[in-house]
């Protein structure tokens, strides 16, 4: 599913990731941990195709991301979902409009997108707020909508960067459970987090990064 071969990334001459090799199989739940500045976000961005590697190869579904043409990147991204710490919703649009956006981009029919949006919102428990404006939602609700938007396209991989960073412990656990249930339906998950409780709750394979090095790959210990 995802394979990295000796990937190295520099920023302004300083190393952000060094010689990273790893392999993530379909349906896995992988937790990326490590101290701040270790390179977690950078690793996700490399897989997402928003920064190119300086060395090494990245294969996502047998496609070489390092060699992707710029015009192909959007299509690469449509096969994935990405959830961020700061929710990134369009504040003046309704929940429905926000979640439907990836479908509009793909040019889906009205009928199909209605059905899919409803499905995704039901999966995150937000289908009763379709017509609410995103700006009036609570933090937990906003993150749920973001997750709905990330899964509305039925992605094969769901990337998440500190998805619980802005949430209180109670909500954090709820969101962790949500990711778990999405993973249970077969979606591969790669989540960066330094929240110990999330790591424990998710009960997945742990990748630990420190100063750009992949320290330990503890395998799946479920």
């Amino acid at each position, binding site marked *: 599913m995802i394979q990295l071969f000796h990937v190295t990334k520099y920023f302004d001459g300083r190393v952000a990731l060094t010689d990273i090799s790893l392999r993530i199989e379909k349906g896995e739940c992988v937790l990326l941990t490590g101290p701040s500045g270790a390179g977690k976000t950078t690793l996700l961005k490399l897989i997402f*195709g*928003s*920064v*190119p590697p300086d060395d090494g190869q990245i294969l996502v579904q047998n496609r070489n991301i390092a060699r992707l043409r*710029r*015009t192909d*990147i*959007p*299509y*690469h*991204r*449509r096969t994935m979902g*990405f959830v*961020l710490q700061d929710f*990134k*919703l*369009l504040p003046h649009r309704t929940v429905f409009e926000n979640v439907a*956006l*990836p479908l*509009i*981009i793909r*040019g*889906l*029919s*009205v009928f199909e*997108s209605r059905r899919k949006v409803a499905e995704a919102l039901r999966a995150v428990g937000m289908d009763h707020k379709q017509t609410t404006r995103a700006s009036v939602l609570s933090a937990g609700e906003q993150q749920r909508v973001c997750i709905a*938007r990330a899964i509305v396209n039925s992605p094969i991989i769901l990337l998440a960067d500190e998805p619980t960073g802005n949430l209180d412990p109670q909500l954090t656990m709820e969101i962790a459970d949500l990711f778990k249930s999405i993973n249970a339906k077969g979606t591969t998950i790669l989540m960066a987090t330094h929240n110990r409780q999330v790591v424990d709750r998710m009960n997945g394979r742990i990748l630990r990064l420190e100063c750009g090095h992949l320290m330990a790959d503890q395998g799946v210990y479920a």
Partner: protein
Amino acid sequence: MRRVWYFIREAIISIRTHRTGTLIGILTTAFTLTSFGVFLLLYHNVNNLLDRIQHNIQIIVYPKEGLEPAKLDEMKQFLKSNQIVESLIFISKQQALEDFKKQFPNEIHLLEGLPDNPFPSSFILTLTSSTPSTDVTAHLMNRLHDHQDIERVKYNRDWIERLTLIVTYLQWGALIIGGILATASMAIIANTVQLAFYTRQEEMEILRLIGATRLFISIPYLIEGALLGALGGGLAIGFLRSGFAVFKHRIESLSVIGGFSSAFEFFPVPFSLTLLVGGIVLGCMGTLATMLGWMKLR
């Protein structure tokens, strides 16, 4: 279909959030296109005038005084036989005098001291409208000059040449001024779109996050630019129309050249369309100029 609505809505939202900028963009485009349009209008009318004159280029041939009727008839046949002469009118001395009296009734006293009819007889030749080069006309002129029974030949060629020169100047003027102004209004449209663009960075980041292509993200901005341009173009056409109406009214009220007023006309629809399309092109180019740097992002 969903996408089309999405694009249009986005463009309108963008315009609504930048009303002042939008207005300035529209007005500059309108100003640019109006200035350009004034030149176009001048060019069109002078060209028209030239066309008209060229279509009734006349050569006036004055036969020598006191020529016998047989000789005159011979000359008439000679003139008529020429290929490029479309029609020919003979005006006798008597008729010329009558014409003068009719045209300038107040000036009749000028003739009083004169013993005889001072007006010469003449042939007025109208050339075929398809008369090609000046060479052919020049050749005819030479033959007329050499003719033993012809006193004098009058031909309004200088006039035409001068007018042609003016048309050329106008063409260049329109090009240069149009170029300068177009650049200016493009820059201002670019600026307007840029404002919209920067305040919506976040939104564009979101779109990139969910896999929108650059084209998809830029279309609303292109629509915005095109809309600004089109509105500017439409406004310019309005300005020109009303300006022209006022101008024409003024001309008509001036007695001296009042008769000329019918010669002036507003430019035809294709020219107006050119202005409109010009506005749209300006708008799109302005947008593209803004987005060039952004396009390089991954």
